[in-house]
């Protein structure tokens, strides 16, 4: 928590920025989704409004904003209106708990006639030191928005969709959480910074039955230590975000549009934002746990800082620190986008499951494999410690 | 060690039963029961029949603060009852081979638990331990009747349980009183029987409210219900009729003996004056039980109920034998306990066998069975003869000695009791006549269900019993010799009863031994 006005202001701005990042990435993602979908289906997609159809987003946004808000006759207002808002909260809070870039240090400086600093800032909304636990806890609240929407709409399709969605979320949360146990055991910490720090640098070094091996051409990423866990986590996150092939809650053929059948306009947009926020959180976690977080493979963190300060981009060390952090943030964003692309790719690649198949997959396949992964990792760790 | 092994082995067997697959339960149960019997026969070799002391003693402190210990010992009073228990169990297992067709796992486990509790109560030399075993026996029996019983089994089992429980609570109170009396007398609480015997409990003749009389009646009530004596016998017919065959056999064969054994072990030696003073009451009730049981048995329409009432009559003999308080009567009672176990057990088994064939026990529906089932009839009549105490069978020896003893103690009662000899013949033979003789009855005539004579298994069940009936009838000395020293000691020193421990073990913790050492 902040100590003086500057710090408080910066923190608040940071919070706002993170929220805005989430919100503002959504139109881009929607565009991307449409374009990629079109590409995969061998058609054009939006290409008339603006270059490459980029302005289409703006048009959509305007349309959403100006659509008439309507309310189902027998709906319950508190629920109905609360649900979209509730949809935003988990994504935003979870994203805020993930470090988006390297922390940076500001030297003491003079501004507006007084001395400020020195400061240490993190590229993260808040850090309680237990990282992933809070992220998981917060994102598990996502189910309420669905349930509230489903119940508040007074529509049986909505209700069914909501129930399906929340059951799905609760079920897959288990696999999701358990799949992370393995990697947490490998890194032996909850702190995101420690986890990223352990993934920094080259080469991939590991201990195999007391003997240290290293593979020179691979980065030190978590995916190599716990590939099974990564796979389960990734699959489970599809279900957690209600994306295809697990988008049963809004299975058009059966439930019209699931829990947001009765929504339109800005409220619907908020659900979309929530959903994409969820996807972003999942991608960010993926990147953080398994792909080195904000670090750049083959490049040492120090060399980025050196490059910024020596390359003349910024002369003042404070600005250099900030820029360095920004570069890491962009790298992180890139990684996140890569995973989001995979989400979109998968959407048009795999068919939808049946609901019972979904539940079977969650409880009878993923959960046991996640448990197995935990045990496997434990055994492996018992015999060969990672040389850190 | 031996006594603990004999007592606790069945408990282990019960656990074994629980883990075995259903298919092999019966053979394994039979095998284990036979093993237990074989082990119990070791008693005969390690038992010193010349000594009246309790032998093969084991004592481990249990609740030392209250002087309660795990105290097992055997003497001539309990030896044969233990062996009777172990002897009847394999027979019951074999006898219930087809009669019990559901939940056999639970049944055999219950049977073994029951065995432990019965053996335990015969061997326990600590009042609390005795009480524990005495009560423990109710539980498996409760389930046996309640689960595998007949139509009105719940009524019967609850009645059985409540009657017995009501009595034994009195006994528990009395035991606690005695434990405190030990503290007042010897300075330390003790539940050891040896200490109880040494207590001098004040007795005032002709007055009801004095310690010894009250304790005497408290114990007596518990045991009289178990025996059962005349006015508190009504649980027995119901329990017997509703119990499955093995349950009846164990109930009649051994459990009733726990009551009479209790009289022998607790009531008569501990409360010598009171039992002398109130002997007439028990003689009277015993005689009434004999005659009443026989009369009521005579008019029963149900074979099993008839046998149940005959138990009342037979146990009446045991009671008058005990309260005749002389060598003949007490030996006879002990002998009659064994007889009753064997002959009534055999009768229940036989009735079970015919019930398996016809699913009916109404005497009126039988008749002419002798023609259809000759071997069965032969065995039934042999057992009947044992039951009505025809010489050369075991029953005669017991009844003769009991009546002899009673005659010495009180002629009028003996003369009244002798009518039981006649009435016994009346009800048994009348039943035999109606069931086995005459023209073929409704059930026997049934062309669709021809009756089959006893098969090899059933013959195997009955053979040892028949052999014993004659062995005990022709050579009673073999059996009496083991108990003679104890009984002699019992009768001669009842007023000042002490039991020594042989061989004397210095480590024994109970007050008695310390007291003797001083």
């Amino acid at each position, binding site marked *: 928590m902040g100590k003086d006005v500057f710090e408080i202001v910066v923190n608040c701005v940071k919070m706002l920025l993170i929220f805005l990042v989430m919100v503002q990435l959504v139109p881009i993602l929607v565009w991307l989704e449409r374009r990629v979908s079109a590409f995969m289906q061998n058609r054009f997609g939006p290409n008339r409004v603006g270059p490459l159809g980029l302005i289409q987003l703006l048009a959509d946004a305007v349309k959403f904003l100006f659509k008439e808000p309507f309310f189902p006759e027998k709906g319950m207002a508190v629920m109905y209106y609360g649900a979209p808002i509730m949809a935003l909260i988990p994504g935003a809070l979870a994203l805020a708990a993930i470090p988006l870039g390297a922390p940076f240090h500001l030297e003491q400086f003079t501004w507006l006639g007084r001395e400020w600093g020195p400061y240490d800032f993190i590229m993260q909304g808040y850090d309680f030191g237990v990282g992933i636990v809070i992220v998981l806890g917060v994102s598990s609240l996502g189910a309420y928005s669905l349930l509230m929407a489903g119940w508040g709409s007074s529509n049986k399709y909505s209700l069914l969709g909501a129930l399906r969605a929340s059951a799905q979320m609760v079920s897959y949360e288990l696999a999701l959480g358990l799949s992370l146990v393995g990697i947490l055991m490998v890194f032996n910490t909850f702190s995101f910074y420690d986890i990223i720090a352990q993934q920094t640098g080259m080469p991939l070094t590991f201990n195999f039955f007391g003997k240290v091996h290293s593979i020179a051409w691979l980065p030190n990423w978590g995916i190599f230590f716990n590939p099974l866990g990564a796979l389960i986590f990734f699959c489970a996150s599809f279900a957690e975000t209600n994306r295809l092939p697990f988008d049963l809650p809004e299975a058009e053929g059966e439930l019209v549009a699931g829990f947001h059948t009765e929504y339109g306009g800005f409220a619907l947009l908020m659900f979309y934002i929530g959903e994409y926020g969820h996807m972003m959180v999942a991608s960010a976690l993926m990147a953080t746990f398994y792909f080195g977080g904000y670090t750049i493979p083959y490049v040492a963190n120090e060399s980025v800082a050196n490059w910024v300060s020596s390359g003349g981009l910024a002369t003042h060390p404070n600005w250099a620190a900030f820029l360095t952090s920004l570069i890491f943030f962009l790298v992180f964003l890139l990684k996140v986008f890569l995973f989001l692309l995979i989400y979109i790719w998968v959407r048009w690649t795999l068919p939808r499951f049946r609901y019972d198949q979904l539940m079977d997959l969650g409880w009878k396949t993923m959960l046991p494999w996640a448990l197995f992964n935990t045990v496997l990792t434990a055994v492996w760790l018992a015999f060969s410690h990672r040389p850190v | 060690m031996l006594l603990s092994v004999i007592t606790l082995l069945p408990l282990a067997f019960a656990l074994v039963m629980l883990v075995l697959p259903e298919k092999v339960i019966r053979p394994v149960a039979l095998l284990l029961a036979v093993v237990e019997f074989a082990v119990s026969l070791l008693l005969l070799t390690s038992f010193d029949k010349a000594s009246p002391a309790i032998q093969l003693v084991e004592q481990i402190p249990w609740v030392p603060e209250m002087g309660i210990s795990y105290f097992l010992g055997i003497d001539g009073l309990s030896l044969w009852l233990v062996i009777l228990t172990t002897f009847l169990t394999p027979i019951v297992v074999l006898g219930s081979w087809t009669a019990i067709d559901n939940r056999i796992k639970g049944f055999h486990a219950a049977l073994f638990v029951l065995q432990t509790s019965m053996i335990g109560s015969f061997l326990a030399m600590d009042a609390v331990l005795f009480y524990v075993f005495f009560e423990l026996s109710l539980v498996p029996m409760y389930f046996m009747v309640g689960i595998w019983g007949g139509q009105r089994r719940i009524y019967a089992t609850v*009645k059985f349980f*409540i*009657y017995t429980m009501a009595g034994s609570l009195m006994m528990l109170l009395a035991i606690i009183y005695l434990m405190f009396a030990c503290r007042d007398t010897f300075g330390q609480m003790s539940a050891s029987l040896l200490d109880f015997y040494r207590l001098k409990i004040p007795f005032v003749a002709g007055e009801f409210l004095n310690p010894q009389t009250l304790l005497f009646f408290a114990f007596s009530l518990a045991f009289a219900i178990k025996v059962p004596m005349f*006015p*508190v*016998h*009504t649980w027995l*017919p119901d329990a017997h009729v509703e119990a499955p065959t093995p349950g009846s056999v164990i109930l009649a064969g051994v459990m009733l003996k726990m009551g009479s054994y209790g009289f022998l072990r607790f009531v008569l030696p501990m409360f010598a004056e009171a039992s002398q003073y109130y002997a007439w009451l028990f003689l009277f009730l015993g005689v009434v039980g004999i005659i*009443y049981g026989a*009369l*009521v048995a*005579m*008019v*029963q329409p149900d074979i099993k109920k008839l046998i149940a009432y005959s138990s009342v009559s037979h146990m009446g003999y045991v009671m008058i034998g005990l309260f005749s308080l*002389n*060598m*003949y009567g007490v*030996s*006879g009672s002990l002998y009659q306990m064994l007889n009753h176990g064997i002959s009534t057990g055999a009768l229940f088994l036989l009735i079970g066998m015919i019930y398996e064939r016809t699913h009916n026990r109404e005497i009126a529906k039988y*008749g*002419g069975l*002798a*023609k259809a089932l*000759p071997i069965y009839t032969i065995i039934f009549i042999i057992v009947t*003869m044992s039951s009505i105490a*025809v*010489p*050369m069978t075991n029953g*005669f*020896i017991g009844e*003769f*000695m009991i*009546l*002899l003893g009673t*005659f*010495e103690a009180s002629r009028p009662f*003996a*003369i009244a009791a*002798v*009518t039981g*000899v*006649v009435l016994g*013949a*009346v009800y048994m*033979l*009348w039943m*035999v*006549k109606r069931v*086995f*003789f*005459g*023209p*073929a009855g409704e059930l026997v005539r049934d062309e669709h269900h021809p009756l089959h004579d006893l098969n090899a298994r059933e013959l195997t069940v009955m053979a040892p019993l028949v052999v014993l009936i004659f062995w005990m009838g*022709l*050579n*009673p*000395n073999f059996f*009496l010799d083991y108990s*003679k020293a104890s009984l*002699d000691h019992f009768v001669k020193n009842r007023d000042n009863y002490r039991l020594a421990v042989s061989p004397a073990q210095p480590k024994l913790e109970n007050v008695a031994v310390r007291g003797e050492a001083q």
Partner: protein
Amino acid sequence: MMSNQILFAILLLAPFVGFMFNGIRWKSHNATLAGVVATFAVFVSFVCSLLLVSQLFGANAVPSVGTRFFEWMNVGGLQVQAGFVIDHISAIMVLVVTGVGTLIHMFSIGYMSHDERPSKYFAYLNFFLFNMLLLILGENLLLMFVGWEGVGLCSYLLIGFWFTDSEKAAAGMKAFITNRIGDAGFLLGIFTLFFLFGTVNFSEIIARLPAGGIEMGWTGPMTVACLFLFVGATGKSAQIPLYVWLPDAMAGPTPVSALIHAATMVTAGVYMIVRLNPLFLMAPNALHVVAVVGAATAFFAATIGLTQWDIKKILAYSTVSQLGYMFLACGVGAFGAGLFHVMTHAFFKALMFLGSGSVIHAMHEEQDVRKMGGLRKYLPITHATFFIGWLAIIGIPPFAGFFSKDEILWQTASSPLGHKALWVVGVLTAGITSFYMTRLMCLTFWGKSRVPKETHPHEAPPVMWIPLAVLAVLSTVGGWIGIPKVMLGGEDNWLERWFHHVIAPVPEALGHAVHSHALEWAAMGVSLSFAVIMACLAYTFYVSNPSLPGRLAQKFHGTYRLIYNKYFVDEFYFARIINPLIDASKGLWAYVDVNFIDRTTYVLGDVVRGVGSTAKSFQTGNLQQYAMYIAVGLAVTMFLILR
């Protein structure tokens, strides 16, 4: 020379082995094999007993031979040996039993040849003999009791041999239960004696009798013991009031009636009294009872015999009557005469029963004498032997019955324990006996044939008539060992000498016997002539003038009905004792057990239930109410703590 122990063992075990042999192959239909084995077994016993009895004769005669096998029971002061003894009393019995037994077994081979289960029959018969031998040879009361009950058991089994007939089974049961009543008395007698003398051994009891201590009252221990024992005897030997089983016992096969219910078992009571004669002499009141009961039984049974139509029933009542004679003899202190009559009666009654068996066999199981008559020409041998038996029983000299019966009657008249009235009853009974036996002869063998046309009577095979012949000879000569003194010129007969040591004379204290040859001759003449007159009368009634009995019965029809229905004794027993007992038992069951004791416990249960239902209202199953109790408890506790 075999030792006595082995001889005894063979003597006892031979029938037992026969029993086992036949018992194991009880399903066999081979009557010949079964019968031969059984007969041989009994014959072996007979030979052994002869060998043993022979030791009582001759120059180096011993007073008794005995052996002990093992100690049977030993409790406190009670030590019972499995020991057996043959003395002058048991010698006669054992010879009669095994001898007559052999003959009856032999007869049975023929009689039972068509039966379904001959092996079983012979097994029972052998087993009976085994028990009878135990009874006779046992050296103590307890062994005697073993045999006593054992023969009762066999009797039960044999009467109910054809058990599919409900009445026969009932007859067996009746026999056993009636015997049991006697046995109960016998047991009490044993107890009394044991506590009196501290032993149950016959010889020891007799040795320990107080010298000259005759009990005159009714309540002395010896009197009581004797009365108890006599109750046993009335049961076994079918005396008033327990005689009712014997006529019914005729339901068994006829040889069984001959063996058990005529010759051997029923005489066990007499034997027992003779065995303990010194004891009984100590208790004259008991002896009086014995004599009166015996005389009464003799008379009543004889009158019933007058009216019966069933050939075996007539013989049965005659048996009861003759047994009464024997008890009369014992009662007046003429134990020797009693035993003598046992022996002769065994001969002639067995003969008559077997003869009747032969008749029944010939008539294809017909027992009603009204359907017989004129059988003399069909069954000559049977008739001849039966005729000898008839002569014997009605007491025509020199046949066996005359000597024994005459001895009894004379002793009754002359003994200090006797009485004139008893003598009169005896003579009357002899007359009646003569009448109904003649009636039997007339109806069966003489006169016109009333045999149904479809029946073709035929003479029995040799295996059946040889025993008849042997018994006929015995019935003739058997009495010669006891020819009265007066006929021998004042010299003691063989029997007197034989019994000299074992049968005590009536003590001087009780008075002196009458010694008068003239009187004796006169008495003999009176009874003989009375018997002859009655026989002639009967012949007139049933052969010469067959319509007369009917008219007489019409005239005295009340009396006739009374006697024909056996004085309604059975009916009396049923109506006054058995049925009330059963009703009372049902009442006990219904009112005491179910309605009183159980009801009482239910009331207790209701009290508990009432308490419980009050408590139940706190225990509604309403979870919130429970939670309320917790909350209230919490509040109160907190308040008390933090107050």
